[in-house]
């Protein structure tokens, strides 16, 4: 195949990959502060998309105001979820914590669908579906817009981790017992990271809701987000960006070749394979911290 086709696939894959990073950012923020793998991030994203639509369709808010109000609602929701459920699980075996986030995932998914129903609806951001020509490359406008949002959020979070509050969060992620003993409120920091992850969920809900419609499939982004987060190293924001681009390119280019062999639908297989190989070969990912276990 010619180089132009492959580079077009690669660039579009990288843009989609940045959207996976946007999703993975939520996972990374929570894992960084509390070492909890939040398997409910997909359900939070889905909830955010439904709340945006409820505000803008049922209550008649303009879309931008709906998104702003949803951000506040979701921040409080994330804060509350941590306070009510995960805080009490601190120090329990990992199987309990995983099951708690899975339970949250099922509960949020079920109650969202029970309230608003499962039929797919569109976000209608007003971004044109016409492709954008960049030299010989054809780009999707919404993916480009989403990638810009993703990069803006990453820069915002990188800057945030340089502020006083951000440094406290970094201290908590390094060693929460030590942070506790020097007077940092660990509970508050962890709750804050849940709030921030829920805000990230709003951003990815709006972009992904525009791309694939608002329905249950939003919660299935979890596998791709988890793969990006693990590949990047679970506690590294820079890792999440780069891993997203890597996964997007591998997925898009690989699927276009592999689909010819297996007859379509090989994207999920590639993602799962990347996840397995990452964990088996380099569990701490590209940029993650390598924890040493004490006996």
């Amino acid at each position: 195949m010619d180089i132009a086709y492959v580079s077009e696939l690669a660039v579009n894959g990288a843009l989609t990959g940045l959207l996976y990073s946007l999703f993975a950012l939520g996972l990374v923020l929570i894992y960084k502060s509390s070492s909890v793998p939040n398997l409910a991030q997909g359900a939070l994203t889905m909830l955010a998309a439904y709340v945006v639509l409820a505000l803008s369709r049922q209550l008649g808010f303009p879309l931008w105001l709906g998104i702003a109000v949803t951000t506040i609602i979701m921040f409080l929701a994330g804060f509350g979820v941590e306070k009510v459920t995960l805080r009490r699980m601190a120090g329990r075996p990992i199987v309990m914590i995983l099951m708690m986030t899975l339970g949250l995932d099922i509960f949020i998914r079920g109650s969202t669908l029970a309230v608003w129903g499962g039929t797919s609806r569109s976000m209608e951001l007003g971004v044109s579906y016409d492709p954008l020509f960049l030299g010989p490359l054809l780009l999707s406008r919404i993916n480009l817009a989403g990638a810009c949002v993703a990069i803006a959020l990453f820069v915002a979070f990188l800057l945030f981790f340089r502020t006083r509050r951000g440094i406290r969060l970094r201290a908590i992620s390094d060693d929460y017992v030590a942070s506790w003993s020097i007077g940092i409120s660990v509970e508050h920091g962890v709750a804050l990271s849940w709030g921030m992850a829920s805000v990230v969920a709003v951003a990815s809900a709006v972009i992904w809701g525009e791309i694939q419609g608002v329905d249950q499939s939003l919660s299935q982004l979890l596998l791709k987000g988890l793969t990006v987060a693990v590949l990047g190293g679970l506690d590294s924001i820079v890792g999440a960006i780069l891993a997203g681009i890597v996964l997007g390119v591998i997925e898009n280019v690989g699927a276009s070749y592999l689909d010819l062999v297996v007859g379509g639908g090989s994207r999920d297989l590639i993602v799962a394979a990347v996840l397995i190989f990452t964990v088996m070969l380099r569990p701490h990912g590209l940029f993650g911290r390598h924890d040493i276990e004490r006996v």
Partner: protein
Amino acid sequence: MFYPLAGVRHQSYVSDSKLFPVPTDRNLLIVLTVAAIAAPFLLSSLYLNSYVQPWLIWTALALGLNLATGWAGQLHLGYAATMAVGAYAAVHAARFGIPWEFALLIGGLAASLIGSLFAFAALRVKGLYLAIVTLAMQFVMDWVLNHSPAISGGSHASLQSPRFALLGQEIASGRGLYYVALGWCALVTVFMMNLQRTALGRALVAVREKDYAAAILGVNSFYYKLIAFSMCSFIGGIGGALLVATFFFLAAPEQFSVNVSIQVLAMIIVGGLGSIIGTYFGVALILLMPGIANEIIANLTSFLGLPLGNETLAHIPTTVYGALIIIFLLVEPLGLGKLYANIRDYFLVWPFDQFKK
């Protein structure tokens, strides 16, 4: 009151490793067994085959996962994949004309072969990363089932299971299928109860508590992880095959999706990790409660004159199921098995419970 003894004291190793240190437990089990055998003559066939029989099959399945997760401490989010291997292998074997007894065995062996692959992941990583890699393997298995017409007939196809027969006797009646489920569940339960008393069971527990420490004591942790995964998959494979052969009557990829893996894990966590009686309770709660709650809510709202939409009613079971997991983890993280143990411990020394301290 129920237990005419004041505490349990052992004076020899033989008495320590007895299956029933408290005679009342054994008597209770005998009563329950008689009740289970008499159940087809006491319950209507609706209850028998749509509540009790699936409960028994799922309990056997959940006990298999409890072996890997509860006893050996290995997180396993790909259990439905091994069930799928067992079910498809057995159904294909039976369609080929092999008698069901051997077809079930083939299913179990095939599942334990594939399931052992999970153990090679466990050799390299553990805890969270093991959970993630087993989850990814589950997705790979889903993909393979959906994309290989040779195994499943394609993505939206289902595979008809041949009539179930044992020892040349065709079993088609509701009662007969119930007894098959009961027999398998009893077999797995007896195996698990005895496992606790053997060196193998103790080695598994040692690996769960700390695999490095177990290795220092001379317990080869990789070997026992491999054993745990292959035994768990063997039980899962036969269970999956029985599920298809006696309950669903056809095999489809959706029956073995990742949600099923999560559901079985939820059953053993709500029931209590490493608890046999708890597994029975947990399966009953997770399997039956969402439907019952849905009926209660539907009746309540129609009684109050606030009819709910069909779509809302369709999603209430999922909500209740998620809520049950959350509530149990918050209120009693050790599960229903622990609640039962608390009640039993109370009555074990009643009315002299002041001596317990």
